[in-house]
């Protein structure tokens, strides 16, 4: 049994997506993290375009273009400017050491594949791995948010989480209506702006972007 070439290609893109999330998990530098995020966006663009081509759904081309503009170009540029102005290029401090996080990541992959197995059996025309990979990416983005201390990293992780969800939506269910996608894209953009403003506020208040300082905000 030979899976069609297009599907193989999407599988490959999915694996690369997972690879990038793992790379983000292992990355210490914020700048490289943002570059990886841009690459993730590029992969997403490619996979959306491929799905659009294979299923002949033209609206997916628009969303591919949107992804390109927003997630490959605009958001990384915004984030880049942000860290430039905040001057937070130093290495990310992690809460758990990196190899341990990677091990947790592998466990998450196994877990999410088994979790996704029954769901993907329902879905038609899709290899069962895709939803599992997307789920693993989501969980791992959450893991990045959990284990990093810098607020900027957390935002990148949040955006990568959104990317993973988007990938699940396009490749597994062949896309959402365009309106919904526009809405989400707008949300993400706005969220990034708001985050940016917050960063300045956080730094004003605590003289640092370390979210550990936020512990002070609770009632004593």
């Amino acid at each position, binding site marked *: 049994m030979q899976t069609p070439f297009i599907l193989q290609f999407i599988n490959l893109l999915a694996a690369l997506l997972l690879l990038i999330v793992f790379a983000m998990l292992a990355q210490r530098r914020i700048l490289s993290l943002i570059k990886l995020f841009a690459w993730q966006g590029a992969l997403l663009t490619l996979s959306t375009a491929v799905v659009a081509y294979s299923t002949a759904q033209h609206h997916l081309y628009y969303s591919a273009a949107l992804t390109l503009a927003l997630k490959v170009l605009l958001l990384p540029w915004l984030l880049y400017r942000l860290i430039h102005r905040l001057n937070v290029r130093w290495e990310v401090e992690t809460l758990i050491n990196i190899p341990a996080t990677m091990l947790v990541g*592998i466990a998450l992959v*196994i877990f999410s*594949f*088994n979790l996704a*197995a029954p769901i993907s059996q329902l879905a038609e025309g899709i290899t069962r791995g895709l939803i599992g990979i997307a789920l693993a990416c989501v969980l791992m983005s959450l893991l990045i948010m959990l284990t990093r201390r810098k607020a900027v990293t957390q935002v990148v992780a949040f955006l990568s989480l959104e990317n993973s969800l988007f990938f699940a939506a396009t490749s597994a269910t062949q896309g959402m209506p365009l309106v919904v996608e526009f809405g989400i894209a707008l949300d993400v953009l706005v969220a990034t702006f708001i985050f940016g403003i917050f960063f300045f506020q956080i730094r004003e208040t605590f003289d640092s972007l370390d979210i550990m300082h936020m512990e002070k905000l609770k009632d004593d």
Partner: protein
Amino acid sequence: MNATSLSALEITNGVILFWILLGAVGLWWRDTRSLTRILFPLGALAALLLAAAGFAALGSEAQTLVLPLGLPELPFHLRLDALSTFFLILLGVASFGVSLYASGYFRHMEGKTLGLLCLEYHLFLASMALVLLADDAYLFMVAWEMMALSSYFLVTTDHAIPDIRRAGFLYLLIAHVGAIAILLAFGVMQGGNGIGAYTFDAMRAAPLTPFWASAAFLLALFGFGAKAGVLPTHVWLPEAHPAAPSPVSALMSGVMLKTAIYGILRVTFDLLPEQVWWWGVLALGLGLVTAVFGVMFAAVQGDMKRLLAYSSIENIGLLLVGIGLTLIFHVYGKAELAALALAATLYHSLNHACFKSLLFVGTGSILHATGERNMGRLGGLIHHMPWASVLMLVGVLAIAGLPPLNGFVSEWLLLQAFLLSPGLPNSYIDMLVPVAAAVIALAAALAAYVMVKFYGVIFLGQRREPALARAHDAGSMERAGMVWLALACVALGLFPVFVLGQIDLVALSLLGSQLGNASADWMFLAPVDTGRASYSPMYFLLAVAGVMGLSVLLVRRLYHGRLRRGAAWDCGFPAQTARMQDTAEGFGQPIRRIFEPFFRIEREVPGAFDTHPKYHGHSDDKLWFLLYLPLKDLTEKLSGWASLLQHGRIHLYLAYTFATLVVLLVFV
């Protein structure tokens, strides 16, 4: 066929009896010269006979015998089937080498002590053989206890030293906790059929619900695991092995640990009617943890025998992984794969018996030559102990799992079993398999690290103490024993097809499935399918040797072989002292640093301005502090409460008796 095959069991019995007799004679003679010149070599010959008898009997039907010994109505049942035979061969092969070695090693011992030791030593051998032969719970437990006690006395041979007494006590304690668990497991397996059902035959027939079968398996795994050194009951190994005289450590590590593996196999695949899949996962997981733990701790040891003890823990872990894999495949009906995994397990048992015995007796020679167990005070022995250094190198290469020696073959088989595994019905287990293979590969690579450290620090480099210049090589009998074990390592490495053919018989009788060699050629090891995998150590050796010879020849012919001796270069650094080399601690330091969370490290680092800088580092087992010490405290507290009952007043004791009587009467 029947006549010869019956005699195999008889020969075995004869050997056991002979060993016990030898021990008794030794106790009576008490003369070092005759003990070492006559008794130990005779014991060795008996071991060889045992191996030969087992070898002849391997393919034949199981033989049974009922001995009218023991208690009335409870005779001893003996049975020699393929599994017992295999482990008897292991016992015979390893103990032949060790006994030969022992006859040289004990030459300087005082006669009276040696007479006692001779008794204990041969009783130990006999009880191990009996454990393998036992076909009822009664004889099994008697032999098991005899094995534990005789080895306890062997461990505490130097009982004047408090540390050794402590190590012996710890060993005895854990051995007994394990024995209780085994006894309980037998009790469960009887299936409540009363005292008549104590034979293994009755247990095979007893119907057990999966719940009780699992209970029996868990008890047996704990009990035998305690003997084998499976986490978390491993703590006695690194204490007891260094304490014992080297031939005894060799036997304990090489053979006695395998009786525990035998026990697990016997209970799981023979006595229990059906297996459950999670047993395999449990064994696999425990094995992986044990393997990595063992090798990690081996890397940071400074005492050479402790290092080897931790390496034994690693190997036991690998064996347990093999058992777990066999279980998983067996339960899921992958007969051929189960046979492959079992073959890997048995092969590795045999290998470990050979190379670990070799290494342990080798440390004995070093101990005799230098009086040092601490690797930090050794070094450069390759110049003073040529025989020992060559033979130990064989052992080191074998245990590091390098081709074309034997360690590689079993590792190869185990990895093949992993590689062939996909397609198990449970997807979690399916994914566990590659992760487990990765951990095995990691443990194997770390074992090479440990062995470079072991050999490099002891034999290579400059002498760390001036007294080492007086070190002498192993004596002739010591050499003979080591040569035998080293030859066994080489032969097991070079003729795997033949060995596997014998192991296959065990797999056939235990699992009802067989592996077979797909390749018709005896040079090629090719389980399952020639296209899938094949390995030929003979060709491998020939090719490496040929290529090496060719390069020597070419270099000499085309250029020259001129050689000068000079001072070491070392980047032009003039003053070379032995203290500049890595110590044992130094060599293990990267491992300690990488796996820091797993150790309990005590460190004393000098400051920059110390006039007498002193560095001291010590890595301990966290489990000891997290598990054993709390357990000890709890026990002390409980016994403290129990001691409240003790008053010394007769009236009170009578009252206890009275109360007990009343309570019992109420129940009756």
